């Protein structure tokens, strides 16, 4: 099944006003967290900076919102939203961004590839596309263990050009693994436009090559993402098989603060015309489910949480030197490591 237009499967999953407001808050939190992180990075308060998800917030929130405990996700380098939606706290992620002694990896890995087993988040690698087969394997385990849990694998348009994408989707389809592939197509891989990297319009069209449904979703519409993912999750849970969801989106910022922006100001400005937070906000206001005052309260709350968290994170010491040698293996090899 191939859809070459923006569309999504109908689903019975109903989002109540409360849910939508919660989704709005998650997106807003992610936006502010990212902005602050970039700011704090510029100020030297954070060591590395992150890959800003600004403009793409609807994808991680919409896809993860309906997950159940016991389900798993494997975020891309940019799916910051997966963490919030799966209840990782600001403090946890700031600790991770700092690599301090309270971070989940105790300074061994950065925030964007951090794993939180307690929250159903698998750690990814820096190798673009390399985590897609790992996510499929996690799904395989869940099925072998007799559960009806599912895995969501997030990755970018660029990752879909890696051999691992191909092998993973083919394996998932032929083994009917309960996994949902969510491609965050922001049209770029670092500085290279997708049009330079592939000769097709919709990555969703790749699904047919694995005998899998592929759908194009409006990645700026959190409800659309939610509904499509829910259908795909349902398909996965019931053992029918995996689905590829291509969420069309835009990267509103440069790839990473290390980079210079090559895109024209015009092109970047056009991205902002469809801000997922604005889109949901307008809808909620229209329905009367969220007022300007509510939003301001939310903003204030978030700002306060962020400030408390950074203060708290900055008070945490760095890991102790000896820790660098632990957890390479289950046991220390000592002299047997040569």
């Amino acid at each position, binding site marked *: 099944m191939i859809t070459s237009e923006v569309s999504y499967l109908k689903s019975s999953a109903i989002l109540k006003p409360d849910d939508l407001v919660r989704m709005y808050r998650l997106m807003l939190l992610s936006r502010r967290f990212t902005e602050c992180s970039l700011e704090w990075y510029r100020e030297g308060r954070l060591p590395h900076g992150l890959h800003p998800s600004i403009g793409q917030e609807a994808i991680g929130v919409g896809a993860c919102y309906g997950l159940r405990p016991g389900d*798993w996700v494997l975020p891309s380098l940019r799916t910051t939203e997966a963490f919030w939606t799966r209840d990782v706290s600001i403090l946890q992620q700031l600790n991770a961004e700092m690599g301090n002694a309270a971070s*989940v*990896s*105790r300074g*061994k*890995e950065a925030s964007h*590839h*951090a*794993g939180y*087993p307690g929250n159903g988040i*698998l*750690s990814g*690698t*820096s*190798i673009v596309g*390399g*985590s*897609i*087969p*790992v*996510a*499929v*394997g*996690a*799904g*395989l*385990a*869940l099925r*072998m*263990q007799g559960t009806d849990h599912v895995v969501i694998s997030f990755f970018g348009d660029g990752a879909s050009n890696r*051999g*691992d994408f*191909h*092998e*993973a989707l*083919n*394996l998932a389809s*032929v*083994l009917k693994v309960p996994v949902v592939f969510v491609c965050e197509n922001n049209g770029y891989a670092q500085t290279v436009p997708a049009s330079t990297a592939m000769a097709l319009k919709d990555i969703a069209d790749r699904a047919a090559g694995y005998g899998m449904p592929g759908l194009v979703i409006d990645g700026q519409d959190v409800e659309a993402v939610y509904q499509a993912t829910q259908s795909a999750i349902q398909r996965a849970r019931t053992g029918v098989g995996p689905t590829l969801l291509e969420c069309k989106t835009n990267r509103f910022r440069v790839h990473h603060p290390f980079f210079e922006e090559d895109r024209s100001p015009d092109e970047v400005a056009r991205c902002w015309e469809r801000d997922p937070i604005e889109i949901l906000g307008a809808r909620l206001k229209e329905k009367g489910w969220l007022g300007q005052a509510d939003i301001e309260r939310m903003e204030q709350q978030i700002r306060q949480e962020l400030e408390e968290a950074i203060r708290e994170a900055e008070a945490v010491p760095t890991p102790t030197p000896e820790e660098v040698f*632990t*957890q*390479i*293996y*289950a046991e220390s*090899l000592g*002299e*047997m*490591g*040569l």
Partner: protein
Amino acid sequence: MRLLRGNQALCEALTQEMTQDERVFVMGEDVAAHGGIYRVTEGLLTCFGPTRVMDTPISESGFVGLAVGAAMLGMRPVVEIMSCGWITVAMDQIVNSAAKVRYVNNGGMHVPVVIRTVISGSGNVYTGQELEAWFFHVPGLKVVAPSNPYDAKGLLISSIRDPDPVIFFEHKSLYSMRGEVPEETYVLPFGQAKVRREGSDVTVVAYSGMVAVAEEAAHELAGEGVEAEVIDPRTLVPFDKKTIVESVCKTGRLVVVHESVRRGGVGAEIAAAVIDSDAFGYLRAPILRVTNPGVPIPFSATLRKIVSPGKDEVVAAVRRVMAYA
């Protein structure tokens, strides 16, 4: 005791572990319906069914990645890569996924996966490659290389039970080698070398397919009055440095034998580690290595014989170190 061929010993290890631990499963090309092209997974499909014994597409990177993901969620996958010559296509999943998970999660997740692969020093320039040195170089991986059916069974069971990713090298000659193998389940600890033969004149370290070659050489040397101590480290990571250093302190001479390429091979590390050990002061001769001299394995059998180290080369190397000073 009962004699088994190496492939039977390995198959028994898999069968026993799959019986006692339902988290263990097997994945690879031709491993299910066909029973493995070297018959190591024979009968497993019948015993354990298609959900635990899976034939895969030709997607080594993909299915190693799957195994890593499954292991992260508590399974114990054993995957087969039919030849070390194309483990090259799965390096990323092995080195960046499997080997790093424990570290980046500070132990919060780990990857108990076993990757079985076949080495041989025969075939052609591709399939003849023995690349254990690559994995040896990567923190987070354990590297196992049994030389006989008994060790193969015990080490495979240990590998499956080990909490870390293990690259398990099976030399083709192991499959047809017969040896005594107990029926019951047993484990062999990692990092314990086996002194295959005691001797006081020279230490010969060899692993995998070269242990038999070293033993043959030792036998011949005994006829000349030279007593070689043959040591099989059995696992390369962890590595039983102590046993080897003690032996060299006793003999004062060391020859290292491997079938893989010399430059940057495991033998270089063994030599370098011994040099930087208590044995330094006892060394009476240079440390020699008997290895593939740095040649791709050619198709012609005539040419191939020149490349792979045999008994004669080991004997010659020992004679050289014995002649020293």
